[in-house]
């Protein structure tokens, strides 16, 4: 069985949802990891969940980056076959920790936005998207105030060149333009990975799209991809 570890910072609030998605929905092993924890090597996948770590005071993710567990996640991410998955606030923390390039600005609307969005899968050869087809459209909700991805031009060019842009906001037909961009993200970016493809950050919440009753099962594509990838590498 795949071992998921879900990090809990003071202020994390999607930790239990991510646990549910991995444990109850995917039927895998899952445990919570306290933010002061040192031993995380036993896990195959570390999820940094959404929420408001340290109240998002100062800047979203800025303080969580200094938690003890983050040093260990840096080392963890450098190892073979280990995956780090940041969702929403988790993505913000990965950016602040420089595990992924760029930064988050306040949404162009200046408001918190919670709603379903459509994402186009730009790269399906990552451990997080292998069960998706290329250009598949996933219906997954967002819920954030600082999800307006920004990086300088050089970084963007390199992200595109290296196929690190994994998800982009689109409409239900796959059109990508300003009108399908909910928060002002550069290049409609909803999720990116590192060059090695084992660290992924995304603003939308796949753990909220796991059953028909909740309105979509598209989040399961991502959790299934992760699970299958780890199983193969075990």
């Amino acid at each position, binding site marked *: 069985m795949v071992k998921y570890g879900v990090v809990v910072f003071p202020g994390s*609030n999607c930790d239990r949802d991510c646990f549910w998605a991995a444990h109850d929905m995917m039927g895998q092993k899952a445990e919570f990891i306290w933010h002061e924890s040192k031993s995380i090597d036993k896990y195959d996948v570390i999820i940094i969940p959404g929420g408001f770590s340290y*109240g998002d005071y100062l800047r979203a993710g800025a303080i969580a980056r200094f938690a003890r567990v983050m040093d260990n996640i840096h080392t963890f991410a450098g190892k073979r076959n280990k995956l780090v998955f940041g969702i929403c606030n988790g993505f913000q923390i990965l950016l602040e920790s420089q595990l992924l390039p760029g930064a988050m600005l306040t949404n162009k609307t200046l408001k918190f936005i919670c709603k379903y969005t459509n994402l186009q899968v730009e790269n399906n050869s990552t451990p997080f998207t292998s069960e998706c087809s290329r250009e598949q459209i996933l219906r997954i909700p967002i819920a954030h*105030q600082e999800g307006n991805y920004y990086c300088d031009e050089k970084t963007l060019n390199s992200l595109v060149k290296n196929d690190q842009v994994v998800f982009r906001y689109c409409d239900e037909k796959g059109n990508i333009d300003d009108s399908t961009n909910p928060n002002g993200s550069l290049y409609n970016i909803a999720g990116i990975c590192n060059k090695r493809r084992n660290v992924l950050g995304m603003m939308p919440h796949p753990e909220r799209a*796991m059953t028909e009753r*909740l*309105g979509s099962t598209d989040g399961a594509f991502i959790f299934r991809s992760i699970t299958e990838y780890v199983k193969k590498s075990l």
Partner: protein
Amino acid sequence: MAEYKSFEITPEVVAEHGFKPEEYENILKIMGRIPTYVELGIFSAMWSEHCSYKHSKPTLGKFPHRGKYVIQGPGENAGIIDTGTDLAVAFKIESHNHPSAVEPFQGAATGVGGILRDVFTMGARPVASCNSLRFGSLDSANTHRLLPGVVKGIAFYGNCVGVPTVAGETVFEDTYEENCLVNAMTIGIVEKKKIIKAVASGVGNSVMYIGALTGRDGIHGATFASAELTEETREKRSSVQVADPFMEKLLLEATLELIDENVMVAIQDMGAAGLTSSGTEMAYRGGVGIELDMDRVPQREKNMNAYEIMLSESQERMCLVAKKGKEKQIEKILNKWGLHAVVIGRVIKKPRLVIWEKGKIVADIPVAPLADSKHPLFPLKKQKGIKPAYLKDKSINIDPESMPVDDDPEGSLKKLMGSPNVASKSNIWEQYDHMVQTATVTLPGSDAAVIDVKNRDFMIATSVDCNGRYVYLDPYKGGMIAIAESARNVSCSGAEPVAFTNCLNFGNPEDPEIFWQFEQAVKGMSDAATVLKTPVISGNVSFYNEGKKGAIYPTPTVGMVGYIFGKEKRYARQYFKEQGDVIFLVGETKNEIGASEYLKVVRGEIAGPVPDINMKTEAAVQKIVRKGIKAGLIKSAHDISKGGLAVALAECCITGTLHGDRAIGALVELQSDIRPDALLFGETQSRIIVTCGKDNARVFRKMAAKDKVVLSEIGKVGGNRLIVHVDWSSQSKCRNINVTTEELIRLWSTGVNKYV
């Protein structure tokens, strides 16, 4: 007894504390001497309307509050109902009107914080929040200041704590121009064996303080909530507390951990009147006393005295009674969450509240007259209401016969769809995280919210409702309808309404006409709730909601909670599903047009008569719809309320888009001898629009016939237009509605959203 030397108790000081002369006489009798300044402050807070319910208690006693589901009725931090499993559901609604009118962001945010604490101090993890908001006209400058602030405040707090805001209502009426209403409700789930109450016991047990530091914010907030908003009180901005949702989230997790570890006897939020009310109430409920040492209370500001510490309403603080010898363990759990726990006092045998400061006693008051409304010296107000003059005026009701019949129903429908109280509020609720905790089955903007409960065979449905205009025009009937409609909304989701909480927002109760409104509304609510077998389990009264032009519409907001039972968890959403589905109208349309949104929006009239309601019919209509949903016969169910049948049909056509489904049209044929405007836009109660697949339609029709519920087939789902043919028997000329769903969506989604 040390004197509080710097403050002499003069008649002015007594008056400043809001005491009526006879109340101060009572204090003298209770104390047998002149009270100290600290004691005066404590009396003032505990006897404020907000804490004492001195004007409302005798009336509130008339509500039904027992029933097979009730585990905890009114009088605790929150009420609790059984689910028939190992779990129970705790919930409560509370107002934060005056703080929000002064400082909308912080006022609304702290309102959400307070109600969350009321629920998790019962041991329940909050799973959903709702709200009921009322502002003046959508065009007014004050609304433009208040609305975005209130919405941002609710979002700021609820989103951070991670409790989804799943349902609510936002209403615009001139009457709320100077006194907006912000009512917040939270629902939590608790393991029955872990329910904890705010009842102190065990002489010698430590009283501990956890959470944020005490500052001077909000001193006399409870008294503030118990006075009319004047220019002067508007200046009292220091009465507004600042919200820290991150602290709340830590407190929430720490409290639930304390409960898991079974280390506490009792816990209570320091809400209105802070340490004063939590200390007094816990002691009173346990028949014991509490002794507190002010020097040990963690303070944020320098040189605070006992008076300020006892009355501070700094947020995110709680008071608990530890089990013997568990202090260290409590401290350890709090430290894990980066918080402190400090012993500030102990439980004592004699039932008194004793306050120490710098080694001296500065207050020593018997607890009973502070908290027990049955105590002979408690300032309970026995009042008699007088029927308000405005209700005796003939012009309060309109004679429909004097009005020409509407010859442009399509134009009227379009007007209504974009009008403030009908149009979509998605720009409001999209600012709330309504999906966190992955259990939100039906999104905001529906009749009722449905919350899944994982690993159990039930779901929770809830709806927050009140039509203040109805209550203004006919307090008794309006009260009944508030209960009926909230229950109807819950039933439309397939859930059985079980119990409710209420937030009774009224004007100044010392005015006999306002008091009459209050009594009548409560009576109407009680009568309706008795028939529906839905007792009240918690609530709050907010009086003194007045502006320059007088009192607000009496607004007894109802938060109804129900269950969807069964392994299949069958539920319904309000919108039309598939081409060819049969549309039924459950219930009977009467020739009623009074008090309607149509009269206000299209005709510019606010007048009765309020639609009639027969609770037996109401119960039968709700029951048949629940049965139909449970049997899997019904695909959609939508309550008919503001805007009548036509607006409800339009909503059925277009609200699927909120759930990612497409809009779909309908062809409806109405034959009636009722004039078309009343037929289309009248707000006759006890009506629900349901749809069934072709085969199931027959079965449902039989089911309804057997239960003797009036049911009429009125059309079919399909196409991309809403077409309504009205065949009015008394005139041959047909009046039609024929409008594309696209047009309806455009009107409906811009009416309010463009302002938010």
